[in-house]
């Protein structure tokens, strides 16, 4: 995965991403307040997109691998218990690692 086309793809993704990230701060910051409805979209849309990412990551490639599913379920349980971010990631990963070790 190398060559000018791949480099151009990375740079294009970077430029487009910066434009999307900076649109709000550059166009709006310090000028006027957005509507409550737009603020609500700003909260709902990320939740929807993140959930879609998790669901497709775990389920889209057919039946989920048991070790992977175990790690994600443990991570979800820790989130429900309000565990800190790093603990969720590290214990979730460790769970998957242990299940893979025991039942490869």
């Amino acid at each position, binding site marked *: *995965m*190398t060559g000018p*086309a*791949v480099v151009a*793809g*990375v740079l294009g*993704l*970077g430029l487009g*991403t*910066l434009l*999307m*990230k*900076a*649109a*709000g*701060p*550059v*166009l*709006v*910051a*310090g000028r*006027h*307040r*957005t509507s*409550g409805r737009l*603020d*609500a*979209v*700003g*909260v*709902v849309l*990320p*939740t*929807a*997109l*993140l*959930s*879609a*990412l*998790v*669901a*497709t*990551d775990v*389920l*889209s490639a057919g039946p989920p691998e048991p070790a*992977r599913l175990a*790690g*994600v379920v443990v*991570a979800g349980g820790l989130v*429900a218990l*309000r565990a*800190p*971010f790093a*603990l969720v*990631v590290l214990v*979730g*990963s460790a769970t*998957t*690692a*242990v299940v893979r070790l025991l039942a490869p």
Partner: protein
Amino acid sequence: MSTPTARDRPAARLATVAVAVGAFGLAFGSAAAAAGMPAWLVVISSVVVFAGASQFAFVAVTAVAGPAAGAVAGLLLNVRLIAFGFALAPRLGPAPVAGRLLDGYLTTDESAAIALDGPEDGTRRRLRAAGITVGLAWVLTTAVGALGGEALDVRALGLDVAFPASFLALMGTALRTPTGRRVGLVAGVVAVALTPLLPAGLPILVAGLVAVPVGLRRTGTDA
């Protein structure tokens, strides 16, 4: 995510985010190296794109459908960052254009969540502190992952789960509300159902857009 103790100890909070991003960075760097992306390009990607999920998507889609499709998939994933930018913007206050571009560059899922959680007049300070912390952790760990990709066994360490686990953690506050759970459930089901039917990246975007009206109906602001 909005517990008073976490808000009272910003340094501890930044440290936990740096560790989580670092785990994700090791996973991405080594996965990209395993997919054949040279280490220097992995590092450039982390500096220039600085949006982990889209960099992951770029590598995954480029491997099967070429870099143009990879870039489109990454951009679709990052549409959510427009929403973060507009959620942050009214709280940022006036600044020169270069400063506002910097605010945009430093906007990530993690830095936006930290910046939005707390008093309005500290939003820019929290965004920049978290953005710089996340950026340093991200670039350094993707470099380590890319260079040590051979030595580090991502699957044996379970680091591939860092990706969904970190997204679950980012959704934590929202998932504790009924609206957030409804939105999450609808988006997840729609995305999985559409995956066999649409090109990579599109099911995520469609699921996101379909779920927004679900969240805004009735109890629109409690998510």
